[in-house]
């Protein structure tokens, strides 16, 4: 039966209206319907309410709008995507007080924080968040919208992020003390940068606000600045307490250097030529520091290996020997000026501490440079010089020393000239003797090529010479009033000029230290 009916049916289905026949039939039917339309009373009960709606009666409270399900679904999809992607994207631009600001701080940033797997990355992220908070505060301040309330909130956020970062660092320390130390150094320098930035901002505001004595309501970041600097100081102290091992430090520096150079490449097209030159100089400084440390390190190590094996063990036993080293370095520091030959076994850990200190500054400088390059707002408020002062090369230092030396010599000549002309004070004679001593030391230092010592003596020498010179000149003025008066006048002018010059020199040498 089934087979029969199926076959039968199938066969019958070959009989059907052709498309043209069908269309034709339909047309005939439709035209028939048109010529024989429904009477008025039967007209489409469904169409009637439609017409009423389109007529737009004033009393119609609701209007039925049919929306296709597909549209609703599509719209829902787009809306969901907007919620997930769009809102966080827009929220990135928000500042404290905006509607979307909580989305930024509590959702986007928390999600990103949870995506950071290693504690080190977490510390970096907390640092970044802190930087973002400061940047937001500054943005608000520059627009004059920073209220005391928001400032307090930002300060609180800064504190929170700091403690979060410190917690992470503590966690790192449990496993790897060296890594923790490096993280601490990085964190401290980032904070330092932020502190500098805020101070720069305050200075800027102060410059603008000097003429108009308007209240600094909404523009002051003083409270925040004090919080940040406080935090920065704490971090700095913590950083100094932690001592990373030489190798780890070197590794950290290498990683940062690569990153810094990458950044430098990308920044080059944007930054001004002077900025580029400045950054390049700083990077070169860092590299030189590292290179000098490496060469210093290699030679004694080899010597140690050749000379005495137990010594090497002492050197490599890590923290305990380093603890000794802190005390020995003090001893060494006292001993060095007297130029006593230091016992070799003592000198090594001391040198190591020095090297680590150098590396530490190198790492800090690098971190600051990276902050400088990555954050536009940092670049706007602070110059490179403020963050990372130039480190002079040995040659530059020597020339600086020689300049000071020459300067001091001219003073000395004048003093000598004065003393030969007239009677002088005892003080001057005493100073003169001291000057001679220092000069001898300085000469020796220059000859030996000990740049640091030479710098120290040169500065000392110059300061002494200056003092003596002023004293001698005043004394001379008292002594013979009329004849030398004019002459003196000219010389004092020169002296003032010279003083200004030397003043600058001494400043820069101080910064180097």
């Amino acid at each position, binding site marked *: *039966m089934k*087979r029969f009916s199926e*076959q039968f*049916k199938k066969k019958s289905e070959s*009989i*059907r209206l052709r498309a043209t026949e069908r269309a034709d039939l339909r047309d005939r039917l439709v035209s028939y319907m048109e010529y024989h339309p429904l009477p008025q009373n039967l007209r489409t009960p469904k169409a009637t309410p439609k017409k009423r709606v389109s007529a737009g009666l004033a009393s119609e409270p609701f209007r039925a709008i049919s929306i296709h399900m597909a549209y609703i679904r599509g719209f829902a999809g787009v809306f969901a995507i907007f919620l997930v992607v769009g809102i966080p994207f827009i929220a990135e631009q928000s500042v404290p007080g905006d509607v979307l600001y909580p989305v930024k701080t509590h959702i986007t940033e928390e999600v990103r924080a949870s995506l950071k797997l290693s504690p080190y990355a977490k510390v970096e992220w907390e640092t970044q968040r802190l930087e973002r908070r400061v940047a937001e505060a500054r943005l608000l301040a520059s627009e004059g919208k920073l209220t005391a309330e928001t400032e307090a909130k930002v300060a609180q956020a800064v504190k929170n992020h700091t403690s979060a970062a410190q917690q992470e660092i503590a966690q790192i320390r449990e496993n790897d003390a060296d890594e923790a130390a490096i993280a601490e150094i990085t964190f401290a320098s980032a904070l330092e940068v932020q502190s500098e930035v805020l101070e720069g901002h305050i200075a800027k505001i102060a410059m603008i606000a000097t003429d108009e004595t308007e209240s600094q309501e909404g523009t002051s970041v003083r409270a925040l600045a004090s919080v940040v600097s406080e935090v920065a100081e704490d971090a700095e102290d913590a950083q100094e307490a932690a001592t990373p091992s030489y190798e780890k430090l070197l590794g950290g520096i290498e990683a940062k250097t690569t990153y810094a150079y990458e950044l430098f490449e990308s920044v080059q097209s944007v930054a001004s030529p002077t900025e580029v030159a400045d950054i390049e100089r700083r990077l070169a400084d860092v590299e030189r520091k590292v290179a000098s440390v490496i060469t210093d390190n290699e030679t004694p190590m080899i010597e140690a290996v050749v000379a005495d094996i137990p010594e090497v063990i002492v050197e490599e036993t890590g923290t305990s020997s380093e603890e000794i080293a802190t005390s020995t370095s003090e001893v060494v520091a006292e001993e060095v000026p007297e130029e006593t030959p230091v016992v070799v076994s003592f000198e090594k850990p001391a040198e190591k501490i020095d090297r680590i200190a150098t590396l530490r500054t190198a790492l800090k400088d690098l971190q600051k440079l990276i902050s400088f390059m990555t954050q536009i707002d940092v670049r706007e408020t602070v110059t490179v010089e403020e963050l990372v002062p130039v480190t002079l090369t040995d040659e530059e230092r020597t020339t600086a020393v020689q300049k000071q030396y020459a300067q001091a010599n001219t003073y000395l000549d004048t003093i000598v000239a004065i003393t030969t002309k007239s009677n002088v004070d005892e003080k001057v004679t005493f100073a003169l003797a001291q000057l001679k001593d220092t000069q001898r030391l300085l000469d020796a230092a220059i000859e030996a090529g000990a740049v640091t010592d030479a710098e120290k003596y040169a500065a000392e020498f110059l300061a002494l010479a200056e003092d003596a010179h002023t004293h001698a000149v005043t004394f001379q003025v008292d002594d013979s009033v009329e004849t030398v008066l004019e002459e003196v006048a000219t010389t004092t002018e020169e002296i003032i000029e010279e003083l200004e010059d030397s003043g600058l020199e001494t400043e820069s040498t101080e910064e180097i230290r």
Partner: protein
Amino acid sequence: MSGQGKNDNIKGDHEERFLKAFEEYSDALFRHAFLRVSDRERAIDIVHDTFTKVWTYVRNGHEVDQFRPFLYKVLNNLIIDEYRKRKEASLDAIMEVDGIDEGTFDELSENTVESLAATLDGKKAFELLQELPDTYREIIVLRFVDELGPKEIASLTEETENVISVRLHRGLKLLRKAVEEKEKETQKKRTTKK
């Protein structure tokens, strides 16, 4: 009124339903008509007339709940009209054959219809459908082409279900006979050719 646009007419609820019925059933109705009258043009005309009649019925204010049985009813009446016009004599003859007896028990059972159908080759039977008298053809087409149930067919043709069963049974028997004869003929042709 006639000046109104096409769309205005089609927009309405009644018009919409009516045209939907046309889309749905025009093919089946045409097939039925074609199998009954064996004339394509006539079949199309009959389908057209069916729809216009139904439309007039709607215009007169009648509500049509289900178009399908109603359309079949109208179509069937029109086909009968067509037969009347064409060959009145034969119709009488058919009427005579019909209703003479109520059929045997065998013929009344749906099962026997099935077993009878099982012995038939559907394709061949379909080809020989035109050789059947319309009384049987109508029922077979309604049953196997339009796939209506015995009850529906009964109400459509205004006969009892028994009559329908008997006609179906006999129709199939006739078909089988026709198929067998056809096979004999072809065999004969083959043997004579040889």
